[in-house]
Structure formats: C-alpha cells, structure tokens
C-alpha cells in the first residue's frame, strides 16, 4: 500500500500544480474537481471517512458545480501573458512551505491527540460517534460559525450576482429530467440516512446537506430554471437559509440559561437537541448551496426578463 500512497500523494501534488498553473480557466476547474476526489481518497487512506465524505461531496462536487456555474456566467478567459518569475513571491511561499514542514515535524508521531478526553466524555455527549460529538457538542460554536460563514457567503454572492443565472444549454429530449426524477427519492433517502447515521458513525449535517443540495442542482439543470418549491414567500426561504445557524445559537443560549454554559446541552437532552440542530443545519446547508448554484431570489424578475428577450 505504500506504493499506492506514494503515487496518490504525487498525483495530488501534480493535480494541484496543474490546477493553479493552467492557462485555461475551464481546465483549471476540471483539474480542481479531480484534485478534490483524489484528496477524498487520501482522507480514506488516513482513516478519516468523515473528512473524505465532506471533501468528496462539498470540496469536489458542489464547489466544482459552483465554479462551473461561475464559469458559465463570465466571459471565456485564457491567460496568454508570459509569466514573470517573482523573487518576492517565491520567498513568501518558500517561507510558508518551511513553516508548514516545521509544524508537521512537531506533530507527535504516536499522538493520540485529544482522543482520550473525547472518549471519556462521550457518555454525556448524546451521540456515540466521536467526530459528531466534537462537532455538535464539545466544539459546537465552531460548527455554528461555519453555518454563519456559509450564510454570509450566500449574502455576498447575492449582492454581487443579482441578475445572473447559469447559462443553461438547451437540451433535446427528456433524459436528464427522467434521471432527475429517478434520482430524487434516492437523494432524499441518502441525505436522511447520512444525517441519521451521523450519531453513531461517519456522516452528519454537512454531508447530508451536500447530498440534498446536489439533488437540487440536478433538478435545476434538468428543468433549466432556478428551483422554486411552491409558493412559499421570501420570508420563509430566508428563515430556511439562516435557520440552521439561529436555531443553533438559540439552543446555545438555552444552555446558558440552564446553567450548562453557552452551547452546552444537559446530557439527558443532548441527543435530541443535536438531532434537531442537525436537521435544521442540513436543510440550511442544502438550500444555501443550491441557491448559490442556481440563484433563487430574483426568480420572478428573471422569468419576466427572459420572456422579454424571447
């Protein structure tokens, strides 16, 4: 397996180099997606299936889809300029590389890290999987802030990108629609399963949210318009976008009031509270990521605009 690991590491470095050095933006994006898949494989080899799932679903899949959607909205660009070698940047990056190597060398080789302490507190955590216990209980604040970052990114994207939807290619036939219809039940099943399984084994809100978002993206591509679910008004959608974060914080405040500290849960209710937070976080993540891909807010103005154009 050492040969395989070595080849994988070389492949990752090669792909990373290609993704950053390519002159063609489209090629860079495709290589970046392949890079994400290889990194996911590396996480599997490091026995970190949680990170592998997240990397494959979000880092490679949805980030790739977002990059491609961006690419379809901007003018084609190829950088033909001769690249000058810059000593100052070379120095900066060499310094960074040396720093990283030094940090890497300081990791204790037989390090258990915090694993003993985590295992000691698992009975109070409400979930049996150590990764979920850390993410949703011991370091819940970090995860809540991740949700806030995601919502923030969506706000920024909305501000920059009001009038653009992906440039959909016209489709002949109904293959993609049929595919989307067949896939939907499976996507829902896998999303719910990943969420539920997160309590005892690898999985959780981010992975489940990414799977649901991928389903919404396929739907949006198949039907060639930003997805709209019924006639819910904007206010309900906004709540679903930021709801995961706010519910998280509210429950955190309840913990403060009950004397278990901010973002702490009473051990007896921890399991139920974590499940509630995870369900809302999953929906928030799924809707935010899908809305970033296809745009949601300006659905009606866009529809009227495209009617005028045609």
């Amino acid at each position, binding site marked *: 397996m050492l040969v395989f690991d070595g080849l994988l590491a070389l492949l990752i470095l090669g792909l990373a180099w290609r993704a950053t050095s390519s002159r063609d933006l489209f090629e860079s994006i495709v290589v970046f997606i392949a890079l994400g898949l290889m990194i996911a494989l590396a996480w599997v080899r490091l026995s970190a299936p949680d990170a592998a799932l997240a990397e494959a679903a979000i880092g490679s899949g949805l980030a790739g889809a977002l990059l491609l959607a961006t690419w379809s909205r901007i003018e084609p660009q190829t950088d033909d300029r001769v690249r000058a070698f810059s000593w100052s940047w070379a120095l900066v990056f060499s310094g960074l590389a040396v720093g990283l190597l030094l940090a890497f060398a300081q990791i204790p080789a037989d390090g258990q890290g915090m694993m003993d302490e985590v295992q000691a507190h698992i009975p109070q955590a409400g979930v049996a999987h150590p990764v979920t216990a850390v993410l949703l209980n011991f370091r819940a604040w970090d995860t809540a802030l991740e949700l806030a970052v995601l919502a923030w990114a969506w706000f920024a994207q909305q501000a920059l990108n009001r009038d653009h939807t992906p440039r959909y*290619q016209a*489709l002949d*036939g109904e*293959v*993609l629609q049929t595919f989307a219809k*067949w*896939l939907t039940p499976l996507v829902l099943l896998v999303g719910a399963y990943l969420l539920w399984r997160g309590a005892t084994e690898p999985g959780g809100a981010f992975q489940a949210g990414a799977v649901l978002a991928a389903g919404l993206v396929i739907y949006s591509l198949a039907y060639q318009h930003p997805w709209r679910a019924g006639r819910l008004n904007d206010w309900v959608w906004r709540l679903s976008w930021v709801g995961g974060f706010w519910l998280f914080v509210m429950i955190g405040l309840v913990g403060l009031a009950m004397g278990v500290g901010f973002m702490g849960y009473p051990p007896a209710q921890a399991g139920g509270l974590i499940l509630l937070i995870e369900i809302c976080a999953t929906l928030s993540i799924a809707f935010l990521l899908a809305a970033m891909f296809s745009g949601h807010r300006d659905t009606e103005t866009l529809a009227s605009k495209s009617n005028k154009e045609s």
Partner: protein
Amino acid sequence: MAEAMGLILNGLSLLLIGLGLAFFMAGTLGVLRFSTPLNRLHAVTKADNLGLGLVVAGLILQAGSWALVFKYLIIWALVLLSAAAVSHLIGQRAYQQTRQTESGETP
C-alpha cells in the same frame, strides 16, 4: 476441499479484476488518443460499464456477506445510471456543436 475452493475463488477474482483493469486502461487510452468527443465517449463508456462491472464481479466473489454483495451491485448500478445520463448530455452538446460548425454559425 475448502482450500481448493478458496484458491479457485481467488483466481477468478484476480482474473475478473485484471480484465476490468484492462478495460479501464483501454478506455483511458481511448480518451487520451481519440480526437472527437463522440469517439472519446465511446471509449470511456467501456471503462465505466464493463470495466467497473468486472471489478465489481471480482470483488463480489470476495464479499463475506450478502449485504456487501448488494452494496457492490448498487454502486455499479448508480455509476451506470449517472454515466449514461452524463454521456448523453456530453454527446448531445458535442452533436449540437458539430452541427453549428458545419452550418457555419458561431456557437
């Protein structure tokens, strides 16, 4: 007797996975060497469908439980489904582009 069975199973697995890998090699070579998108698709579907199918068949012989066999088959079926849908989309796009270049329109 059980030993001989194990040996035969291992041999069969090796053979099937080796054959699958050969299809993957051929498919990759085709993607790299063929010039038009449709030819490349033709090459890569062999790797996706038959290559992965053979690898999965080889792994199924090593699977300890029916649950694992079922999972392998689901993986193969899902890859088949997505490969078919994606190939269709790429092919459609390639066909549209060829027609546009032939009729002299700018895409």
